[in-house]
């Protein structure tokens, strides 16, 4: 195929990182939430509200950083609703999360009505790193991205370190595996779980901003197109490990980038089928990640999705 030149590959890899960043933020947040034992299926709704908040504030203020902050706030606010329902009231976490997604989808469509399609010029544009950007191939792939991507470059290893190398990370893992043990150690299970849930929501919101303020500047209804769900699936694929989440997110970004590039190169496949690729890929990922041998190696936190009640302790 003469369309696959080295330049093509480099551009796909660069796009993979750019497109994968939104999912990466959301996945990282969900990793932390699920590690604490809470299942958050409201990620899609939180990403949408974050994307809307980011776009709206940026359109109004001209400053994408304010938009990003607003996105984080919106995600955190929704995360706190989930925390209230799932942790505080010990509701069914699946239904609570689903309801939040439906709510976030509808609310964002409603509130965003007036700015649909409004051109957003103050987005997070390409921010090349002086010096590093000129490295052949790698420079184009890693160091000609936007500010949010660079933040994710720092965030992922930081969270990995936090989870596996710190005391607080140990407590986090205890929350998800054996909350009774954490409770006995004096850890405030509810408060910490709520905090991680809100944190996850905040990152989901930031993921939404990574779309509306970077890859698809502006706002349209349903701008995330299911990426929140893909992020949740990728958490399973990542084995609840922030470092592997990076791999999953960029793999996904690559699939999406490939689809776009192939469309642009006039390959004779209907754009509809190319658009299906990310979702087919996610199904494949789930199949691969949950086959019995894989599951034995990278198990879910044992207490995931189970509300903790001290009275239930044996």
């Amino acid at each position: 195929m003469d369309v696959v030149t080295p330049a093509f590959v480099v551009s796909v890899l660069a796009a993979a990182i750019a497109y994968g960043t939104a999912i990466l933020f959301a996945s990282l947040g969900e990793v932390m939430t699920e590690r604490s034992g809470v299942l958050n299926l409201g990620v899609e709704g939180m990403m949408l509200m974050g994307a809307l908040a980011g776009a709206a504030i940026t359109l109004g203020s001209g400053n994408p950083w304010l938009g990003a902050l607003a996105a984080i706030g919106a995600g955190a606010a929704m995360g706190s609703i989930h925390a209230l329902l799932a942790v505080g009231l010990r509701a069914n976490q699946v239904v609570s999360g689903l309801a939040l997604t439906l709510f976030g989808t509808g609310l964002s469509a409603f509130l965003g009505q007036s700015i649909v399609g409004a051109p957003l010029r103050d987005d997070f544009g390409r921010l090349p790193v002086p010096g590093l950007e000129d490295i052949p191939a790698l420079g184009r792939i890693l160091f000609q991205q936007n500010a949010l991507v660079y933040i994710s470059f720092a965030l992922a290893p930081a969270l990995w370190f936090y989870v596996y190398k710190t005391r607080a990370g140990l407590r986090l893992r205890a929350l998800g595996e054996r909350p009774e043990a954490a409770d006995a150690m004096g850890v405030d299970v509810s408060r910490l779980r709520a905090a991680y849930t809100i944190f996850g929501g905040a990152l989901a919101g930031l993921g939404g901003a990574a779309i509306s303020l970077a890859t698809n500047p502006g706002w349209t209804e349903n701008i995330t197109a299911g990426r929140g769900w893909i992020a949740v699936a990728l958490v399973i694929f990542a084995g609840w490990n922030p470092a592997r989440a990076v791999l999953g997110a960029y793999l996904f970004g690559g699939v999406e980038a490939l689809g776009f590039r192939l469309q642009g190169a006039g390959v004779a496949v209907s754009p509809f089928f190319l658009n299906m690729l990310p979702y087919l890929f996610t199904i494949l990922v789930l199949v691969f990640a949950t086959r019995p041998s894989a599951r034995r190696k990278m198990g879910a936190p044992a207490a995931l999705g189970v509300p903790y009640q001290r009275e239930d302790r044996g």
Partner: protein
Amino acid sequence: MTAPSTAADFVRAYLLPRSVLSGLAAVLLAFAVGAMLIALAGRDPVAAYATLFQASLGSANGLSETALRTVPLALCGIGIALAFRAGVFNTGAEGQLFIGGTAAAWVGLQLAGQPQALVLTAMIIGAAIAGAAWSGIAAILKLKFRADELITTIMLNYIAIYLVGYLLHGPLQDPTSPLAQTARLGAEARLPVLLEGSRLNAGIIIAVVVALVAQLYLWRAVDGFRLRAVGENPRAALNAGMNVKRIVWTAFLACGALAGLAGFTEVAGVQRRMIENLSPGYGYTAIIVAWVGRLHPLGITVVAFLLAGVLVGGDRIQMSMGLPAAIAPMLQGIILFFLLGGELLTRYRLVRTPIVPPAAGAGAGAGD
């Protein structure tokens, strides 16, 4: 509980079960929040709500429009409830609806000119089979590969919509129109209208029949009992000799078939062709309808009717008061949300249990 000694006790014990109270409170709270948002949009909330009720319940036409929207919500909701009762979190009703609707349109066009009874029956069967097949994909993924059905069915929703888009822009497109839709269905492929001058069609009869059959199935049929047993305690069901795999299949296929049927009613009853925007998210809304309806087919039908009323009223508010188009689903979302919150104050809880007993560590995984 001691016998009620005062009138208040009596009312509290027998006339106002907590669930009804909390449901009412939830709806009121939701309307209050909606009023705030309407006011934020610069309109008069009282006038808006008056219009909402008038439009949905205040006239024969309004009632028929409400009944019209009840059909897909109820059908999908019942299908989802059947799946949930077996422990299958099938969230793919939206995609199954689209696939079913497309199949129904195709069948209807193929059989153009044949007698109506034949055509409609064929369309129903086609829609149900297509929807069930789409759901079956997720079933295979779940039973063969242990892939979580909640996410796979949602992914399949997106895939379905793109697939339908491809078909409507290509092989199934109306040759006489540049729009992404099939040709118009002939009169033989349309559901008969029940009320002259309205759009109310036989779909509502289908929905009610399905609700009754589902209710009977769940509580009067041995198979329905088995389905519920698997959902409540799969391990016990397995030990009691039930064929859990077959029951899980039934759950997936039943949900897909009913969602497909909902697609048929939209195509044959409302749109008279297959279009790209066949459903404004009925399949997703139906999830909450099913849950709030306590997974009871008749309860689901009632909840579906109420929410359909909000949709109809919301559409009218949007048209007559110039509010943003998303006011209806958003109001609906708020109501559902508060209803959910209210649910938490009542006894009933859905617990998600694994379909097949988890492998107990020492190499037993291969046997699942």
